[in-house]
Structure formats: structure tokens, C-alpha cells
């Protein structure tokens, strides 16, 4: 619900140079962790790195970063 972007996220990397800000990923996120704020995709802390968003992205703009 919060608009704050998860800038410390080590879970999901948004390649902003590739993202077409279409919201396809937002619709499939089971946690509701993504939000499209105009042309900016925000990622919340509750992202579980399930990778569904990365799979469906038409452009391949999302990468799941595995925790070390």
C-alpha cells in the first residue's frame, strides 16, 4: 500500500533501461509487491523472489537476484 520504493531490495532487480512500464508484472504478482506508478515500477519489501514477474515480462526487464 505504501508508495515507497524498495530501494534496498536485493530480491528483484528492475532494469529500468529495458522496462516498458506496462504493468504486466503487477497483474501476476501473488504478493501484490509491485506497483506501476506512471512510468516507474516500484517493488515492495514483501517480494518473495518467486520470479513469476520476471518470466512473464514481455521485454525481460526483471531479474531475480538470489540472496547470498
Amino acid at each position, binding site marked *: 500500500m505504501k508508495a515507497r520504493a524498495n530501494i534496498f531490495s536485493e530480491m528483484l532487480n528492475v532494469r529500468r533501461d529495458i522496462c516498458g512500464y*506496462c504493468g504486466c508484472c503487477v497483474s*501476476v504478482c501473488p504478493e501484490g509487491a509491485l506497483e506501476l506508478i506512471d512510468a516507474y515500477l516500484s517493488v515492495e519489501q514483501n517480494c518473495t523472489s518467486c520470479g513469476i514477474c520476471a*518470466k*512473464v*515480462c514481455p521485454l525481460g526487464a526483471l531479474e531475480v537476484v538470489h540472496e547470498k
Partner: protein
Amino acid sequence: MKNKYDVLVIGGGPAGALAARTAVEKGLSALLVEKRPAIGAPVRCAEGLGKEALAEFMEPDERWISAEMTGAGIVAPDGFEMRLESAMAGSKVGYILDRKVFDRDLVWQAADAGAEISVKTRASAPILEDGVVKGARLEYCGQVSHVKADVVIAADGVESKFARWCGIDTTVPMREIMSGMQYVMTDIDIDPHATIFYLGNEIAPEGYLWVFPKGERAANVGIGISGKKSGEGHRAKDYLNRFVKKTFPDGKTIECIVGGVSVCRPLECTVGDGLVLVGDAARVVDPLTGGGIYNSMFTGRLAANVAADCIAKGDLTKSALMAYDKSWRESRMGKTIERNYLIKEYLIKLPDEKLNAIIHSVSKMNLKEFSTISLIKEIIRVNPKLLVELGVLAASLR
């Protein structure tokens, strides 16, 4: 902007615009907010709309009609093309819109009718009182305001968040999101009056690729594939680029857009206390075609009509607003969605060889009524065995 309206509409697409316009025409006060700075852009749509469907809402206007369609083609996985023509030769059956202008016109109409409009304004949270939706927190250029409303109509599209914030699970199953991409191309050889659909697992797995004319030598060339089939090296982008390179090597791409289209069943319930969901946010896209313009306008208008009734009666509870949910499900649109969902589920499981056989069996069709269902009925007439395979659907397809 006031701090209280009868109806607050979130989203300025066709669903939101129709909701806002209808609400003010019913004598209600309405505010429509759109998070983007411009209505209609970026387009997330192949822009096709049937003639009859448009006629239910308004007269066509040359300002937002890009092209008129008189026929369609379906290209089998093996490359064989089946043609569909209107029974009345040359008569138009549908349009390719210019959504940037169309959407703007719809919002303009809502504004002219008396609705207030606020762009670059994002609903960032619902106002909830004892679980009842009472309005929304709005943000505009860093300025926060709390706007109350008797009814909130969430028309926030495929990337809808508002309903989820109100406790409704809107997640689209991975296999039922169409991952899409589209180019607007010019300087290409096309039939300027026919929409062409390409099918097959090599072309567009569990989806289709389209060429929808935008002029004599221009078209929307796009694709939707199942999210389940998407992945690194085989995304919508990869399929589309492969097709374009082969089919329109000398074409020029003047626009590139991406998007997601839900082809699942609609949400189990499309209302809450003080809340109504419409259009893509309610997942009322036609699951077979991926078309959503008509369904959005239909549900947007219906939502405002039901909201007006409920406001007049002073009852904005979920059970009162259920009249909306019940009404669209019982409508022709609701029944078409359910039937086309079942047809889609059947079709996506077909191997290419079988699709080839079906499409070859009917190389030319003249349809009295230009709709998906008349096409399916004709296919079944030629391939009666399909009726057995379609099982539960059979009765409604005879």
C-alpha cells in the same frame, strides 16, 4: 477538487470514462483521476472494435477511426490463410481505433457532461472505515488529499492495485496473462481492410499474433503469448521480432509498446462495500480474443447506473452493489466471456496439426454476423466431430 463526491472513479480508460460520464448524466457528482499525465497514452491495445459493439455507445467519428474493416484472415500454423468476409461484400464489420484520440474523447465527453477530471493524480490508498471503502488518498505532484465518495469505481486496468488494497485478490494466474508487445509499422504491404490473425505454437504459443491495419500501408503488428510460455530468449519481444524480420523486413517501426492482457475468468466477485470494479481491473477481458474495449465501456456504464440506484436508496453495501455483479454476469457480455473462456481453454491445447486441419477445412467463409461465435459455429458445421470434444460447451454452440 472538492473533498467529497458521490462517485470517485480511478482510471481514465474507456471503463473509467464511461463510469464518470454516466454518473454525472444520472445527476451525481463525479471525480475521475488518472495517474498518467495524459489520457490515452501510452496505448496498450491492438485497437480493434466491432461495428455493432461501438454502435451500442456512440457513432463512429473519423477523428478516432484509423481504419475500417470489411474482413479478416486466419493464418494456420502451416501458413495457409483462411478468409472471412462479410456476407454483404464490402460492408464494414469493425474498426481499428486510434486509442490515443478515442480515450481522450471519452474523457472529454465525461468532462463536458460535468465530471471533474484530475490527471497525473494517483490513488495511493483507499480510505477504509470498518472495512467499508469511503474514498481514496490521492497524490498529485507531491500534494496529498483525501477525497471521500459514496462509491469508488476502480477502473485501474490490468495493473490494478486499488481492489487489492481493499482486500480483493486480483492476481492473474501466470498461464492466463498474455504477455504482449506491439509495433506500429508503416511502409508495409498489407490488406488495409482486413484484420489478420496468425496462430501456432511456433508463431505465438497459446496466444496469437495480429496485423491490424491503421491505414493503407500501416498496421498494428503485435503479439500475445501465454505467461507460462514466456522466458529468457522466448519472450513476446523475441517472437514478434522474428515475425517482423521475416514478414515485413523493410517496414518502419514508429511505435513500440508492451502490455499484459488477462485471459482468465473474471474475478469471483467484482464489488465490495462502497466499491465496484470495472474493465480490465475486474478481469472482464474476452478470454478468446483478448478484446476489452467494449467490455470496459459496458461495465463502466453499468457500474455508474447501479451506483446511482444504490445512492438513491442510501445503501452502498456490498450486497446492494451486487446488483452490478449479477447484471453483467447475466448480460450477453458475461455469457460470452464464460463461453469464450471454455473455447479458449480448448483451443490452446490443440496441436498445430489439428489447427491446420481445422483451418484448411474452411478456406472461405461468408458470415452473416461477424463475430467469434459465428466463426466457431461455422467451423463446427464443417467439423461436426469437434462438438464432441468441446463437451460441456456443445449445447450452446449448436
